[in-house]
């Protein structure tokens, strides 16, 4: 073994091809944008709670022209950028970029990803894309204001939204898409082709199954939205009319509805892309902290597979009120409701894992249980949205907003925190503070439910989405006080996250050193030191069992087995 010369600083930490460094880069980028997106949410809630009042403290800085108040032109920018940033520049980098990049090679027993240079490129594409997004705030006309859904004809015509901020948003998104696609190639190849000897698919941690299916969905559907985005750019700047018709169009033939099909053809799989890693992570963490094998492992994997397939053919449920053919709508409705079957299966498997387990209420476990709770609500409200008849009533109301925030801002966010609290010791070799973590969880849990459960009822009352001032509508005046309530609860939620940031930053530098396996977890990553050696494994590890061998009754010393423990070869289970 030749001694490796030490790479210069910029090759080790900036332009590194090491998946662990890249994962941390993704993590920091994602957390930064999470904070930015959260700030936008608070501005939105302030505006709704106290319409047209100057925002305290930071108002004069952000909205100088209007004395510190949100303006009608700025409001669409707020909800557009909030959505776009959260989905593409916060959650995706953290859950796919950081969780995926960090755990996949370690958990399959590889020294690095299949294509390390491609991996490095994928981060820098994200970096450039997110920088472009930040620049879009500063151009004349401001940031994009067509909603994160970028619907034509609003997005496709420069008559209404002429600013370059719109184009920069689309461009930033396109670069992010390239980044994710590159990552997808790496994830799929590494998980399928680079597993250590003995690591059959039957023994793969659920987190990796979630990441795998997520990457498959990305590979299939991101290009569809990429094609749509390029067509929007052409409509805006090159005089075409793919998505324009009527007086806005320079010539005939464009189909406005086509954009929605293309967008949601990606957009629906996208939400599953965001949550599949969480489902996998929750499956694993419930097992670790209940000290029991994951109940119904095979059924869970097949359910996730079924959902992956189904998610590609249900996009029309976002378009029930678009004027789409109602019969096609019925087909989408039936298929969407079908998704609830595999979802219920793996959800019940989660409960089965918990049943009669020896629960360890660590901070990651608190967040995992939090996911189970909020996802139940989010998932069940999804059933209502799936019905064409009901959806016609609640489309574009806060009922939908409540539904997707329960599944995204609640489930995915809690999943993100579960990921960070669980993997922090492995990544940084230090422990996060438990007390702060518990406080962070409970405060977040209370405020989160306060904010989004009320939204459900507002939606049933008929409160529309994306309006800047509910008091302009007579029928909404009676519920305006709920907007005030949500505003203060949202502030509470936002402030609770400070507990996380403080904990995270403090522990980075001053956290107590941690042993290799502080959680007694059985998967491959926990057999190496915390943090792991530069190339993970000196020789490929040998795997003899699955990652959930906890509470094994036949053992004489200890009650759980690591995946590399040769004793496992004698187990009756595979």
């Amino acid at each position, binding site marked *: 073994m030749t001694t490796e010369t030490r790479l210069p600083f910029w090759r080790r930490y900036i332009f590194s091809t090491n998946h662990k460094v890249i994962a941390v880069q993704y993590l920091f980028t994602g957390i930064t944008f999470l904070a930015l997106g959260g700030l936008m949410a608070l501005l939105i809630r302030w505006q709704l709670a106290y319409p047209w009042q100057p925002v305290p403290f930071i108002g004069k800085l952000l909205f100088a022209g209007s004395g510190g108040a949100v303006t009608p032109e700025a409001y669409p920018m707020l909800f557009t950028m909030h959505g776009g940033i959260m989905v593409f520049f916060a959650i995706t980098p953290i859950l796919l970029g950081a969780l995926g990049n960090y755990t996949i090679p370690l958990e399959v027993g590889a020294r690095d990803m299949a294509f390390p240079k491609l991996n490095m490129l994928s981060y820098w594409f994200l970096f450039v894309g997110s920088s472009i997004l930040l620049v879009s705030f500063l151009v004349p006309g401001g940031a994009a204001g067509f909603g994160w859904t970028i619907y034509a004809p609003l997005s496709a015509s420069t008559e209404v939204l002429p600013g370059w901020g719109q184009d920069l948003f689309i461009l930033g998104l396109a670069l992010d898409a390239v980044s994710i696609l590159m990552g997808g190639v790496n994830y799929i190849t590494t998980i399928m082709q680079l597993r250590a000897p003995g690591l059959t698919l039957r023994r793969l941690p659920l987190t990796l199954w979630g990441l795998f299916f997520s990457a498959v969905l990305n590979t*299939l559907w991101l290009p*569809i939205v990429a094609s749509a985005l390029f067509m929007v750019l052409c409509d805006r700047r090159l005089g075409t009319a793919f998505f324009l018709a009527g007086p806005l169009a320079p010539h005939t033939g464009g*189909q406005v*509805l*086509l954009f929605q*099909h293309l967008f949601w*053809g990606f957009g629906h799989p996208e939400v599953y892309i965001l949550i599949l890693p969480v489902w996998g992570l929750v499956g694993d963490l419930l097992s670790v902290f209940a000290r029991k094998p994951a109940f119904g492992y095979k059924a869970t994997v097949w359910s996730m597979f079924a959902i992956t397939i189904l998610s*590609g*053919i249900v996009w*029309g449920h976002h378009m029930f009120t678009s*004027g*789409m*053919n*109602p*019969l*096609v709508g019925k087909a989408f409705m039936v298929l969407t409701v079908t998704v609830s079957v595999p979802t219920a299966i793996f959800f019940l498997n989660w409960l089965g894992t918990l049943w009669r387990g020896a629960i360890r209420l660590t901070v990651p476990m608190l967040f995992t249980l939090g996911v189970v709770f909020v996802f139940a609500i989010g998932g069940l409200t999804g059933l209502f949205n799936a019905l064409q008849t009901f959806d016609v009533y609640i489309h574009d109301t806060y009922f939908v907003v409540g539904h997707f925030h329960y599944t995204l801002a609640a489930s995915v966010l809690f999943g993100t925190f579960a990921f960070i609290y669980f993997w922090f010791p492995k990544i940084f070799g230090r422990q996060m503070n438990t007390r702060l973590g518990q406080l962070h969880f409970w405060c977040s849990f209370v405020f989160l439910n306060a904010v989004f459960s009320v939204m459900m009822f507002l939606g049933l009352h008929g409160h529309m989405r994306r309006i800047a001032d509910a008091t302009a509508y007579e029928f909404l005046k009676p519920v305006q006080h709920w907007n005030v309530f949500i505003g203060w609860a949202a502030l509470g939620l936002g402030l609770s996250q400070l507990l996380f940031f403080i904990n995270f930053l403090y522990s980075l530098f001053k956290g107590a050193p941690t042993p290799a396996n502080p959680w007694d977890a059985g998967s491959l990553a926990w057999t190496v030191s915390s943090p792991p050696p530069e190339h993970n494994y000196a020789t490929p590890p040998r795997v003899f069992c699955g990652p959930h061998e906890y509470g094994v009754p036949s053992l004489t010393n200890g009650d759980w087995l690591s995946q590399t423990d040769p004793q496992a070869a004698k187990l009756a289970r595979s």
Partner: protein
Amino acid sequence: MIYGWLLGLTLLEVGVVMAGWPRGAIVTLLMSTALAKALLIALYFMHLKFDRRAVWWLPGIPLLFGIIFVGALFPDVVWHLVQRM
């Protein structure tokens, strides 16, 4: 060789269009020849014929989803069924 076939099919396509055959016949013929050429390239040049069957899933899955996706758009964008209802 395969190349010969590809050459021949292309010349056939161009010839048929220049000669001005009836529309229905042209469309059917062209779709078939394009499909044939694509298959020839995929199976022989890209070696799919000699790879294991499992590799066929890799291009197969997106093609399947692509067909479903485009097909689902037909009632609205092509047949304008809602306006006609």
